[in-house]
């Protein structure tokens, strides 16, 4: 059963692939000594205005439309987008769509040099502008992870930039906190006055 607060938080953090209710995940398979980069499904899909049973936005694969008809060249500003792409919110500095997407092949990216880049290589793309974050990411000090700290005993799954940041509005979304405070009772309440330091 899911508490409303949890659902609200999941909605608020909808972009983050990791933001699922915590469960006791079995340890990942046999160790390979590797870090595995999480590949979020949203790379090749857009949000529809419908929600799934848990209230999360349903996403529609790009292929649903684009396998049937040709993709138009990408406009430079999101306001010029039509149909499905119309509601796209964009708050990412002064960038144009074509700063990252290839104008004639919107399902692939390109580096600053113009060299094409598959969607799955977002980390390389983001790293061009976000050096300090990329440095921290490589060191294991930016971005969430699951699995093993000790790679000799199991794998570690790392988030990818877009697991948590919507590339079009990258500032991390807010949330409603989970674990709401409990009413104090005579015995057994953890955190009331003490928690606030008025011991």
């Amino acid at each position, binding site marked *: 059963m899911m508490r409303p607060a949890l659902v609200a938080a999941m909605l608020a953090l909808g972009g983050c692939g990791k933001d699922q209710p915590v469960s006791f995940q079995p340890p990942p398979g046999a160790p390979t000594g590797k870090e595995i980069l999480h590949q979020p499904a949203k790379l090749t899909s857009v949000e529809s205005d419908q929600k799934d049973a848990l209230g999360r936005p349903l996403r529609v694969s790009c292929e649903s439309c684009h396998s049937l008809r040709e993709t138009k060249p990408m406009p430079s500003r999101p306001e010029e987008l039509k149909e499905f792409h119309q509601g796209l919110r964009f708050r990412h500095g002064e960038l144009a769509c074509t700063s990252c997407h290839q104008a004639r092949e919107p399902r692939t990216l390109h580096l600053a040099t113009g060299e094409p880049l598959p969607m799955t290589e977002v980390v390389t793309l983001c790293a061009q502008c976000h050096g300090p974050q990329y440095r921290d990411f490589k*060191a294991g*000090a930016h971005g969430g992870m*699951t699995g093993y700290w000790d790679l000799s005993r199991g794998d570690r799954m790392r988030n990818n930039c877009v697991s948590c940041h919507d590339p079009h509005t990258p500032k991390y979304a807010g*949330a409603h*906190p989970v674990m709401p405070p409990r009413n104090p009772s005579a015995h057994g309440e953890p955190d009331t006055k003490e928690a606030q330091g008025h011991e």
Partner: protein
Amino acid sequence: MSDIVSRRTMMKGAGATLGAAAFAHAMAPLTEWSKDLSVDEFLQKHYKELTRDELGRVLLHLKEETKRKYGRDVDIQALPPQEGVSFAYALNLSICIGCRKCAEACHQENNHDRRTGNSYIRVLEMQQGSLDLEHGNANYDHPVPAEGKYYLPVQCHQCDNAPCVKVCPVQATWKEQDGIVVVDYNWCIGCRYCEAACPYHARRFNWAKPEIPPEEINPDQGYLSNRIRPQGVVEKCTFCLHRTRAGRLPACLEACPTGARVFGNLLDPKSPIRWVLENKRVFVLKEELGTRPRFFYFFDK
């Protein structure tokens, strides 16, 4: 404990002169006093003195007891500290949004009482520009991050110079080789001295027998960590040692949706925790007290 004779040594002496049945009878009020502890558990040797066989029997007994009291089959292990491993934790305060997902994960992972919503992690809402813990608010309930605030999650810092360990009159709490400060819940007498001594409010007292529906019990348990605690004892964060001693990341780190948390082995130069200590400006809380925490904080700027 040289000049203090432990209560168990005393009781054992008494047992030898009384005879087993009479002794058990005589002990009954004591088990009442110590709530959930059976006579066997009360008479158990100190954890550090248990042989492998004895420990095996204790673990088996605890598993059976959990089944009886909570209706759930669980696995309780006593993983020892690993050679060459010394744990530390760091938290990036520029990234934390105060969502308390870490506290919730702790609540579930460590089999906390559902009714009280306990957790070893308190997330304090702090005024930007201030580091005054006493004015942090742990009971906020509005969308986060709030304007002008930042969030400071606090849990046990596994202090190298731990005041909680020093004040325990029966040595029921101590520091292990990998840096984790543990509590033997079967040995703790519930005097709460340690709770009072901890400057970080990182210890909790079990006022009542924890209530957890069987299907919500995390069956992956450790003797010194997340097994369901008896009533009347003190407990605390152990960096999830039943997980971390098996090489896994702590539950709070895995649950953090922003990646604010960094964990690792201080003795491994390639560990992310070493990178943070070497490349970020880290600080500890209440440094002036000389507790020497293993939990570090940093900001990006």
